[in-house]
């Protein structure tokens, strides 16, 4: 006869995201339930106007994504996970800074299909996961794989994780000069997940990635000026902490990430989610995220060469082979996300959920330095609905 705690831990393990990084409560145990998840994401991003004409539409990308996830223990020591997502992408993307491609009447249309499979074999308190992933678009293809090892101490209060991954990508733009270039990413992770008390669990991950090859944005290189180094070293430290408030029947999930790369992007990201249990199987989860980042060393502000004009940076004619980007993602800004999620658990393993989020980036919102001037605020809305079944 399992104790309530034991039954619960199996449940939690089944709902968690295994094969990647140890999830709840620092344990390495085989999940004993199958989980099927379906989710649909509607995403749109926009700015005030197209960057050329005041009062024009500033709509950027719209993405509609149905996704499936399956977690299936097929024996007492083997677990399969399968994920699949389809992205339907339409809209306009900036040529340079916040000047949209839509300004010339030309839009972007793309479809992305991605799938991944993870196989995990458990050897007592040790789990070995092998993962393969494939993603294809009209102008991009990625083949990736990873290997993760998790090991728990005998008391199942501490789990050590190490992982290594590799991704081999091809870029073949469908606009402008025809070419295929490659981009490879090698990454590694080392982490500890620790039960801190009967209501606290913490995690620390160290992450490193090396990207090499064609890292330039091919479309910004055609319509703007985009020339990036052919390698990028990225480092991240992620600290996560979950606390359960017994008297409130609520969970606080929080995280902090420090990020640094040799393009001189430094970022600090904080997240917090409050999962409030309510009667009738409902859970209400408000969430907040703040990030602040510095600009890449080769990002230039929207001040253009006196002779050549936009999109050329000052001095471009005398130094055309230097590194340049006008990509808003590599500018200095602060970003805030606010969200709310409502979930309900039904009988026989069914549950449904819906989540709405608003995200905005502004130069002014940066902390720890000046934000990049002269860009329109970037805004996005995300809506997710999901159905889950466990058996």
């Amino acid at each position, binding site marked *: 006869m399992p104790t309530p705690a034991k039954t619960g831990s199996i449940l939690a393990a089944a709902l968690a995201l295994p094969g990647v990084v140890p999830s709840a409560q620092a344990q390495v145990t085989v999940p004993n339930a199958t989980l099927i998840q379906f989710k649909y994401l509607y995403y749109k991003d926009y700015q005030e106007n197209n960057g050329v004409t005041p009062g024009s539409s500033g709509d950027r990308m719209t993405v509609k994504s149905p996704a499936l996830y399956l977690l299936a223990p097929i024996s007492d020591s083997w677990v399969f996970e399968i994920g699949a997502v389809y992205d339907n992408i339409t809209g306009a993307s900036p040529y340079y800074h916040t000047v949209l491609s839509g300004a010339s009447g030309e839009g972007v249309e793309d479809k992305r299909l991605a799938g991944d499979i993870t196989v995990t074999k458990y050897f007592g308190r040790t789990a070995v996961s092998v993962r393969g992933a494939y993603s294809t678009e009209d102008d991009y293809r990625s083949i990736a794989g990873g290997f993760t090892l998790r090991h728990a101490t005998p008391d199942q209060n501490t789990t050590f994780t190490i992982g290594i991954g590799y991704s081999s990508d091809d870029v073949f733009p469908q606009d402008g000069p025809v070419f295929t270039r490659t981009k490879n990413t090698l990454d590694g992770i080392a982490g500890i997940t620790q039960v801190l008390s009967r209501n606290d669990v913490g995690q620390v991950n160290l992450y490193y990635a090396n990207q090499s090859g064609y890292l330039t944005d091919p479309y910004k290189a055609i319509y703007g000026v985009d020339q990036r180094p052919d390698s990028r070293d990225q480092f991240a430290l992620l600290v996560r902490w979950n606390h359960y408030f017994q008297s409130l029947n609520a*969970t606080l999930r929080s995280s902090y990430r420090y990020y640094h790369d040799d393009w001189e992007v430094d970022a600090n990201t904080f997240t917090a989610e409050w999962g409030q249990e309510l009667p009738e199987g409902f859970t209400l989860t408000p969430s907040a995220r703040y990030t602040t980042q510095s600009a890449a060393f080769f990002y230039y502000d929207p001040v253009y060469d006196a002779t050549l004009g936009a999109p050329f940076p000052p001095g471009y004619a005398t130094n055309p082979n230097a590194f340049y980007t006008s990509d808003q993602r590599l500018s200095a800004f602060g970003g805030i996300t606010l969200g709310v999620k409502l979930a309900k658990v039904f009988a026989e393993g069914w549950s449904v959920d819906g989540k709405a989020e608003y995200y905005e980036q502004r130069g002014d919102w940066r902390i720890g330095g000046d934000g990049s001037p002269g860009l329109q605020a970037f805004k996005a809305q995300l809506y997710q609905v999901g159905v889950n079944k466990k058996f």
Partner: protein
Amino acid sequence: MKRLIAVASALAFSVLLIGCETVQPWQKGNLAKPDMAFGPDPLQTRFEEHTYFSKEGASGGMNVGGGGCGCN
């Protein structure tokens, strides 16, 4: 230098973790709640990670071998 500070604080935090109380299996009822997992909703985690990966300069820290996309 900043990297050094980050690594040092990670190590300090790790030492702190190892020095904490031992929780017995029968005391793990709350820890076993689905909401106590890191990323309790797999597809939600994927969607949100993918969004930030494609719209910000920083990424990584949760897993490896994720693969790239033309969105970035």
